[in-house]
């Protein structure tokens, strides 16, 4: 019995043209028994950064509270919002603090960072359960359906997708990947982050 697969759940994030998207399923289970079809795994960190936490559900909630605290402390001390790159390292070091008794989650983050010229640059990253960072240029996946997500994302993703096309790509990727995974599914939530707004949509999925 692996703790990473105990509750089930998957998250994926993708880069588009001046936008990023992050999506997750909504299932919470106890092994094969479904408990809830409305368990959120993605949390807003700032207006421009979203964090997905697939893995052991108790650690999902604990880390969400922990990151909220640490980001609030950062915002107060620095008197500015945290940048996605900085937040990624905050996630990494928080997880590595528990190197020999880890939190059983694989965080995925998506955000837009500011460039000196005033425009925005898409940013996505993922880490393993002890905080090894993976910065990707295309997409990152995590959770019980990660193997399937790699396959579908590899086939559907292309560079420089506009926000609406990116939404369609990430939605179809997740929806089709979780249908091949018994521990993920039961509906999805998708966030598309653009320069001036975040669009959040809840998708219906197969309930089996």
């Amino acid at each position, binding site marked *: 019995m692996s703790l990473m697969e105990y*509750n089930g759940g998957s998250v994926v994030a993708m880069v588009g043209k001046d936008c990023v998207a992050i999506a997750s399923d909504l299932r*919470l289970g*106890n092994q094969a*028994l*479904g*408990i*809830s079809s*409305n*368990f959120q795994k993605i949390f807003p960190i700032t207006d421009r950064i979203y964090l997905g936490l697939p893995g*052991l*559900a*108790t650690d999902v*909630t*604990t880390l969400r*509270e922990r990151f909220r605290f640490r980001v609030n402390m950062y915002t107060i001390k620095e008197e500015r919002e945290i940048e996605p790159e900085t937040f990624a390292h905050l996630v990494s070091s928080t997880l590595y603090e528990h190197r020999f*008794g880890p939190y059983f989650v694989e965080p995925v983050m998506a955000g837009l960072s500011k460039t000196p010229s005033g425009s925005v640059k898409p940013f996505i990253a993922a880490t393993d359960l002890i905080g090894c960072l993976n910065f990707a240029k295309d997409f990152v996946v995590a959770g019980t359906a990660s193997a399937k997500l790699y396959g579908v994302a590899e086939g559907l993703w292309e560079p420089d997708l506009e926000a609406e096309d990116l939404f369609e790509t990430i939605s179809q990727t997740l929806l089709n990947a979780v249908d091949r995974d018994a521990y993920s599914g039961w509906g999805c939530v998708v966030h598309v982050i653009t320069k001036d707004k975040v669009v959040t949509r809840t998708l219906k999925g197969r309930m089996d």
Partner: protein
Amino acid sequence: METSFAITGKGYVIVAADTTSARSIVKMKIDEDKIKTLSPHLLMAYSGEPGDTIQFAEYVERNIRLYQIRNLYPLRPSAAASWIRRALAESLRSRKPYSVNLLLGGYDTASHDPHLYWIDYLGTMTAVPFAAHGYGSYFALSLLDRYHNPEATLEEGLATLKRCIDEVAKRLVVSPGKYKVKVVDQDGIREVEL
């Protein structure tokens, strides 16, 4: 084996738990009340390792009461649930974790809606329309997928609960005999006979 259910409806939460206290294969007691009243509008059904259950339930009960005495108003259901979850999550990574599963049902007197939380010994918490713990959950959850109605009246809710209990009695080999049923709504908490 130990089983507990909870169902939300229109302005109420029903919480039910069996009343057996077992040690190994022996029933030691058949009228144990495993649902604690935490505040005037908050119920908690607990099950799990004997000893841990009572110890943890009383710890929670006293702390929720302390908050009420200090602040002159009780914690709302969502706040109480978060506090209890954190207590379990911190206990999980200690030398001897509490092995206690909970169903927390409450009525929020500020926003006037019922709340139900499913919490397990790991500190996993989720808000749900209906919930169950123990072997009975394997039968009750699928039954409630079919028959649960969030807009049901109390009478209809109790009828649905009866269906759950009957189904568990019919199909589970080690089914409990008796249940204690409590309801929380706008008027507070009361026990009901099925």
